[in-house]
Every structure is written in structure tokens, then in C-alpha cells.
């Protein structure tokens, strides 16, 4: 098969996987009563694409997933939150992945989760126009570090078993 078609198919499949993971995660109840705390499992796919294919393809997959999930499951306000968090997160993860020379994927994942949450707090600050929303930060930082570690390890081990392109 033509290599670019093979790559496009793989990326499309990964986008679909990310979308499904995202949908299932919406079913999970929030463990802590702080808005924005979640596992962020769909980020596993973003990490895989970033590490294996590079940041341009990762951006493509991420954009498609965020837009599609908004069309299928979202509400008006969530698109702003999702896109902001996603873009910041991807930018920081690209930097981190470069600095770490594609190793230590779990650290990249943690930075991705942290920047995602920080970006969402920034949006919340702008929307509520108060600084008191920053009171959620400690819980969000702890959650980001723990969930980032988990998703990073998932991505790391998935990459070991994902067949490379011929």
C-alpha cells in the first residue's frame, strides 16, 4: 500500500480511538468536586501520535478529535475550553518531547496535563473575571501530575507494542 495512504489510515484510526476513549471517559463520575478534574485518557492517543509521527500529525489528530467530539457530544462553552486546553497542552508536550529526545514519555504527559489544566484555569479566570477561581489550582495540579503519569505510562507501553510502518 502507498505509504502516505497507510499513514493517513493509521492516523484516522487513532483519531477514532481517541474519540471513543473520550466518549467513554464522559461516563465516568467525577471523583472530586472540582471542575476540570478528569483522567484525560484520550491524551494517550495524542502522546502516541506526537512521539511516533511528530507534532504536525499530532495537531491534526487532536484538532479532528476535539471538533468531532464537540459535534457529537459537546455544548457551546466546552469547545472554547477544549480547544484552548488542547492547543496549550500540545505546544508544551511538543517542547517537552523535543527536550527529552523522545524519551521519558510519562514526563511529557505530565507537562501536557498540567498545561491543559492551567490553560483551562486561565479561561475560567477570563470568564468569571475573578482571581478566586485559582483556588482550584492545587487540586488540579495534583490531579494533573497523577493522571499525566498514568496516561504517559499507558502511551509508553502501547508504543512498545504498536507495529511500526513497513
Amino acid at each position, binding site marked *: 500500500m502507498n505509504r502516505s495512504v497507510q499513514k493517513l489510515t493509521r492516523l484516522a484510526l487513532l483519531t477514532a480511538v481517541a474519540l471513543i476513549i473520550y466518549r467513554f471517559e464522559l461516563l465516568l463520575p*467525577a471523583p472530586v*468536586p*472540582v*471542575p476540570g478534574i478528569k483522567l484525560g485518557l484520550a491524551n494517550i492517543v495524542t502522546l502516541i501520535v506526537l512521539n511516533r509521527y511528530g507534532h504536525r500529525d499530532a495537531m491534526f489528530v487532536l484538532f479532528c478529535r476535539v471538533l468531532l467530539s464537540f459535534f457529537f457530544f459537546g*455544548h457551546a*462553552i*466546552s469547545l472554547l475550553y477544549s480547544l484552548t486546553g488542547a492547543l496549550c497542552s500540545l505546544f508544551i508536550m511538543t517542547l*517537552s518531547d523535543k*527536550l*527529552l*529526545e523522545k*524519551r*521519558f514519555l510519562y*514526563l511529557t504527559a*505530565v*507537562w501536557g496535563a*498540567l498545561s491543559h489544566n492551567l490553560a483551562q484555569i486561565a479561561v*475560567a479566570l477570563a*470568564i*468569571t*473575571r*475573578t482571581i*478566586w*477561581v485559582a*483556588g*482550584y*489550582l*492545587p*487540586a488540579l*495540579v*495534583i490531579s494533573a*501530575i497523577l493522571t499525566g503519569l498514568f496516561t504517559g505510562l499507558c502511551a509508553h507501553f502501547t508504543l512498545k507494542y504498536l507495529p511500526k510502518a513497513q
Partner: protein
Amino acid sequence: MKKLPSATKTAILMTAVLILLFLLSVLFIVKNVWDKKNSSKLTAEIYQNGRLIHTIPLYDIGNSYEFPVYGENGSYNIVRICPGSIGIVSSSCPGKYCIHQGISSHLHVPVSCLPNHLLIRVVEEKDLHAIPDIDAITY
């Protein structure tokens, strides 16, 4: 000693920073719980779009009561005042995260309904806003 690759050095530095951030956050939460134990008179402040619209004492409350806060485009939140705590029990927002936050008496963690631009914070008397942004006399 064998020189470490730069990626490993970066990883060690990053891990140190993350551990520091983690510990700082845990400290904040511990401080929050500690403050809650030692606080006396609590007051709630309700902000809409950044403007203080209600200041409600949470002490010397007999029975709990509820009242609505209306926002733009027909949005609303029903706020419940209990002795020493406050929370949102009903809302027009789609996600209902505000209701999940429950009835809170936390000092530093607010209760908020972001789609409705609402934020509620619980403060001790000394941290009260001196002057609300809209004053009935000057308006």
C-alpha cells in the same frame, strides 16, 4: 563519572520541579483544611461576571434557605445557604458541575458555575470585600 545524556539531565530537572509543585499543592490543601478548623465567622460572597452581587453571612443562620441568582439569557442558579456553608443545588447550565461541588465551607476553594459566570467564595470576616462594586446609593 560517565557523562549523563542531556535528555536524562533534563528529565531529572523536570522530575524535581514536578515533585516541588506536587508538595506545594499538598501543602495548600493541608493549609485549607487547617484554616477551616480554626475559622470562626464565615461569610459568603457571590460574584457574577466579576461583580460582587451578594454578601451573605453564614453564621447565626437558623434554618437553611434557598434563593435564585439569575444571569444572562435566562440562565439561573439556585443557591442554598446552610449554617456555615453554601452551595448550588440547581442550575440551568448543561454540565451541572456546580451542583457536584456540593455544599461547601472551604475557605480557599470556591464553588462556581462557569457557564453562568458565577463564583461563590467563603471568607472569614477579615477578608471581606470592603466595598461592593455596585452600591445602591451611588448607582
